[in-house]
């Protein structure tokens, strides 16, 4: 096989890891609370700015800047639920979409006001390493590893703890949760904070590869939603698989055509698959 094609595929795989992490957070929130956070990618943008300011402006070591960014975006997720979703939890889904859509424009405009539209880079240049004649960016390799570790940590949490079991149970029967001694509100707040933390973790990984600017969310938002829908909204395993399918289409398509056209191919694939399997690739 062509070495460059193989390299493109490896890069696609690495990109898939970060996309999978992004999709995981969005799917978790949707699966548990039944709310779509339209502004999810803007939370990622907030996390990227946090990393940038702490590291570049205040001179924090990158590790501490990243840990703080994860914590701050987790708090943001918590606040999104407390201030925006909770008051309209019983309302029609369209209202929740509009409210978090409003948050998207609010965050984009607020970031523009505070930071301007400059592209900012955290200025960390990680080396490109050579493995068996393949040139792979270390930043991408690390992002893939961390994303995978994050996904595994989430899986173990959901599988093995009481809180995790309650998070898996709640969408199956909300009313009965009280009889189990579960405070529904607390589950929603914890889930929102975890969703935020996943956005924050993605932000750290993306900050290593991309410049941050107020509209960076537009780069990842649509593809993340597409992946979630492709995997079946709320289906975390489906989203995980879909992330790697999409990233391969983008990588291989990009190799044979151009990066721009690769996205055309990816979205075409998405539209066709929605006609064939409207409830997601893993639906029965």
């Amino acid at each position: 096989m062509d070495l460059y094609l193989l390299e493109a595929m490896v890069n696609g795989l690495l990109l898939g890891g970060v996309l999978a992490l992004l999709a995981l957070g969005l799917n978790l929130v949707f699966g548990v609370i039944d709310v779509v956070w339209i502004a999810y990618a803007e939370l990622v943008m907030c996390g990227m700015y946090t990393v940038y300011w702490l590291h570049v402006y205040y001179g924090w070591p990158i590790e501490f800047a990243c840990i703080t960014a994860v914590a701050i975006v987790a708090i943001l997720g918590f606040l999104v639920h407390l201030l925006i979703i909770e008051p309209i939890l019983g309302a029609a889904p369209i209202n929740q979409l509009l409210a978090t859509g409003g948050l998207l424009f609010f965050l984009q405009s607020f970031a523009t006001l505070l930071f301007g539209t400059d592209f900012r880079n955290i200025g960390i240049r990680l080396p490109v390493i050579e493995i068996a004649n393949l040139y792979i960016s270390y930043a991408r390799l690390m992002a893939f590893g961390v994303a995978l570790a994050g996904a595994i940590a989430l899986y173990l949490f959901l599988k093995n703890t009481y809180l995790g079991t309650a998070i898996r149970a709640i969408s199956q029967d909300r009313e009965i949760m009280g009889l189990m001694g579960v405070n529904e509100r607390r589950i929603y707040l914890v889930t929102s904070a975890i969703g935020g933390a996943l956005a924050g973790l993605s932000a750290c990984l993306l900050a290593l590869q991309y410049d941050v600017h107020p509209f960076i969310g537009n780069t990842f938002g649509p593809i993340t939603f597409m992946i979630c829908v492709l995997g079946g909204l709320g289906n975390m395993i489906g989203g995980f698989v879909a992330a790697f399918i999409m990233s391969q289409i983008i990588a291989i398509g990009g190799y044979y055509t151009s990066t721009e056209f690769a996205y055309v191919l990816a979205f075409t694939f998405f539209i066709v698959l929605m006609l064939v399997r409207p409830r997601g690739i893993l639906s029965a």
Partner: protein
Amino acid sequence: MLSLQGVSAGYGSFRALFNVSLEVGGGEAVGVIGPNGAGKTTLMRVISGLVLPFSGSMVMEGESLTGVPAYRIIERGIAHVPENRRLFPKLTIEDNLRMGAFIPEARRQFAKQLEWVYELFPRLKERRTQFAGTLSGGEQQMCAIGRALMSRPKLLLMDEPSAGLAPLIVQQVFDLVRRIRAEGLTVLIVEQNVQQVLEIVDRAYLLEIGKIKFSGTSVSLKNNEMIRKAYMGL
């Protein structure tokens, strides 16, 4: 153990319970019988906190339950086996039981309690990694009762445990209530299967259109001409 005084409750402007008073003593098994729509399920939901009463008071072991949310009521030792079982269909049996042990006091005793529940229902142990949604009706009822027992309750509320089950399984469920009583639990059971429930309870209340119409020992209910005619077809 549990005492209700003048409880009225309903949904919105609809009233399902009118001035209901009821007592359950420690170690007793008490039944609530009555026709469809009499308010039996509402009564259970009021006790476990899923429905807030309009008025009246509820006391469990000397402490008021009025206005306490459901997720706190279970900590007072009241577990509710809801109507239609309401298992989590896409969780395994063991995860369903784990949900039953969510409250902190129950978590500490999880392993011991799980062993006891599996001893009561060996069937559940055999199938513990299966999704609850794949169980038969009788097995689901066992799982629902097991889930409630995981919280180490003092009082078990059972809402129509025999509903939708084959006669042979109904018999098994009632035998099981006897065994649970023998373990020292207090039981409040709602049933339409009047004849059989009167065999396992000490006392019963007759609830009709939201009001207590009659109460007494199961012997006195079994001998009551009106109840025999209306509810036992005798």
